[in-house]
């Protein structure tokens, strides 16, 4: 088994290494690393805001913080600002980074390219209103769900700079006149990008007005959260996972839909019958996916963190994983997604999808055999993954055990892929001839 795994790794490494060395992947990776510190700070701010300083948050609930902490109701304001300007605006940085690195690879003016891409993205996310006061940006486009769009915007901007401006020499201490020269040389691509951005922006606004696409997304998520057929639940979970690793919002993304009719029906049934077994909707997004498939955020990334702790030899992996543990305990996967990165990483595509589905399958069997009741009771925001099922079943110990088993299973699923990723890193290092370990 171990030998065949080794052989497989040996065979896969050269191919994936070639992919790693394309400009395309390099730009994506550098951009993600640029966004990583912002994501990390934003995530810490967000978990404090949601789990500690929101009355219904996990830490706030179990320690009754709102009852005894002075000025509790005002404490969340600074974190609101920090979260919304880091996490909910991070795609702007991504657009900047993608354009900057793209321009740099082609010896164009990278600063102007980056700034142009950032502004172009903001223009596209700008929401036109009839009222003169206050304008808003579409958070779907500039928040963490806008990663892919931002990368495309940045890439396109870099391409425009490649086409419409001349190469510049990368001399640091250029003369003022040279800088001016370079700036005027970049005017054409800047104008092209911004005009295209305005046109797309108008188109998007028209599309939103004409088709209610934002409401459609919410309606689709509502439908997804309400669905209770076993196959539909698994199918939509898989769809969510695929979309999320490519940086989009999937149908089971939690934040947008809080309450669904199937949850309410289940809860009422359980309260009426004083038991959560035999509720009408046993296999829903809530009872399976959110309760057993999201430890450490989408994709069970808590398992990957543990896998790194016990088996990785890569210094960077360990550092990222250590910083990501606390957010992951409160189900935020942002730091792992961008720091490792898991996002757009073909190696982790398989465990990212398989691990949650396997966990859901284990839970389905356990619920089907009546070992545990389905999760029907309210679970506070930011509850650590392994405790969700425990709390949601009113403290069922077997549910806690299944949570732990699920976590162990997921670690086992992630381990070989983590080794493959590490082998590629080592091969890349060997190829570059640098034995640098800091």
């Amino acid at each position, binding site marked *: 088994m171990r030998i065949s795994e080794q052989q497989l790794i040996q065979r896969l490494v050269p191919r994936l290494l070639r992919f790693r060395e394309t400009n395309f992947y390099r730009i994506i990776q550098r951009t993600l690393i640029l966004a990583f510190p912002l994501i990390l700070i934003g995530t810490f701010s967000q978990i404090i805001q949601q789990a500690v300083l929101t009355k219904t948050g996990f830490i706030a609930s179990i320690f009754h913080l709102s009852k005894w902490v002075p000025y509790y109701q005002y404490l969340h304001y600074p974190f609101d600002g920090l979260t919304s300007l880091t996490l909910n605006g991070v795609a702007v940085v991504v657009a900047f980074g993608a354009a900057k690195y793209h321009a740099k690879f082609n010896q164009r003016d990278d600063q102007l390219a980056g700034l142009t891409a950032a502004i172009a993205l903001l223009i596209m996310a700008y929401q036109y209103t009839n009222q003169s006061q206050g304008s808003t940006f579409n958070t779907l486009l500039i928040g963490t769900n806008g990663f892919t769009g931002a990368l495309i915007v940045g890439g396109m901007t870099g391409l425009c700079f490649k086409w419409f401006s001349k190469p510049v020499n990368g001399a640091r201490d250029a003369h003022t006149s040279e800088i001016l020269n370079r700036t005027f040389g970049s005017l054409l691509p800047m104008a092209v990008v911004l005009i295209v951005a305005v046109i797309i922006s108008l188109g998007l606004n028209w599309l939103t007005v004409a088709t209610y696409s934002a409401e459609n997304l919410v309606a689709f998520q509502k439908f997804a959260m309400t669905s209770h057929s076993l196959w539909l639940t698994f199918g939509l979970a898989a769809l969510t996972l695929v979309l999320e690793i490519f940086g989009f919002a999937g149908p089971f993304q939690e934040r947008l839909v809080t309450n669904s009719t199937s949850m309410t029906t289940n809860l009422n049934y359980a309260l009426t019958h004083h038991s959560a077994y035999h509720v009408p909707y046993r296999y829903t997004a809530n009872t399976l996916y959110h309760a057993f498939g999201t430890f450490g955020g989408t994709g069970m990334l808590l398992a990957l963190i543990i896998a790194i702790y016990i088996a990785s030899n890569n210094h960077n992996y360990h550092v990222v994983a250590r910083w990501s543990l606390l957010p992951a305990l409160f189900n935020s996967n942002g730091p792992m997604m961008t720091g490792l990165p898991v996002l757009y990483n073909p190696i982790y595509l398989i465990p990212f999808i398989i691990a949650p589905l396997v966990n859901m399958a284990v839970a389905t069997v356990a619920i089907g055999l009546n070992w545990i009741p389905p999760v029907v009771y309210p679970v506070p925001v930011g509850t650590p993954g*392994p*405790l969700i099922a425990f709390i949601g079943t009113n*403290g069922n110990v077997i549910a806690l055990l299944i949570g732990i088993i699920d976590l162990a299973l997921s670690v086992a699923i992630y381990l070989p892929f983590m080794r493959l990723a590490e082998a590629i890193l*080592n091969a890349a290092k060997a190829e570059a001839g640098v034995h640098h370990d800091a």
Partner: protein
Amino acid sequence: MMLKPNWPRRRRSLIVLLLGLLFLGLLVGPSYQWTQSNVKSMTGRHDSQMSPIIMIPGSSATQNRFDTLVKQLNKADHRQHSLIKITVGTDDQIKITGALRPRDNEPVIVVGFQNNHDGYGNIKKQARWFSLAFKKVAAKYQFNNFKAIGHSNGGLIYTYFFEHYFNRDDITVKRIMTIGSPYNFSEANLSHKTQMLADFIKYRDNLPKSATMYSVAGTENYDSDGLVPARSVEAGKYVYQGQVKHFTEITVTGNDAQHSDLPQNQQIVTLIRTYMLDKKPSRNKRLVTANTTE
């Protein structure tokens, strides 16, 4: 070409992992206690038979405004509804007088305000004060449904409350009755919408979908109860109709149809008894239905 494990590095990570697991382990106990008490209180509320009638008086009236009405109700249906009075001060202080009688599941709770002045700005403030009082009684009496009655501006306060403050999914409002509530203030012409009416219409999506709503108007002549134009009461349909489950408009005329007399009006007392109060407990009902063909 596996490298040899770097043990010091791994040891540091494993310590972090152990700390993380310890952290999780320590949270198991508090989590268990929280969910047990949460489910217990939810069950308590879910099983609760309590269904109060919560009344809000109009402007310039106090928490004593409905004393006569409650007396008339008690006399008419031979049930002693407890009368609990609440006053919310301008400093958010809540004062409760009166007590719940044993085995009374349908108390009348009247919420008055220290600042009981007229005007949209005051109505907004009063709605917030009401939300504080509501939170307090909801915690104290553990009901899962209630009936809402608002006289005059009380109906407007309720409307503002439902649109901006009431978002509990463990408590439903079964029935709402507003009596002589001027949804368009003193403006009789509906093409002149006041700011308040415009706001009410703007946020009407937030109104409780499962409630049954009665808007009662009094008229002394063909178009006013002496203070509030009938058209202003009628404007309530632009807010409630199509949003709540049923919307019914009732116009009362005759004796005591003047605006301030409405809460004592015999007709309205009967309407409240018929439409707002719960039917008598089933053990009596069986005896009654055995002899009637209702």
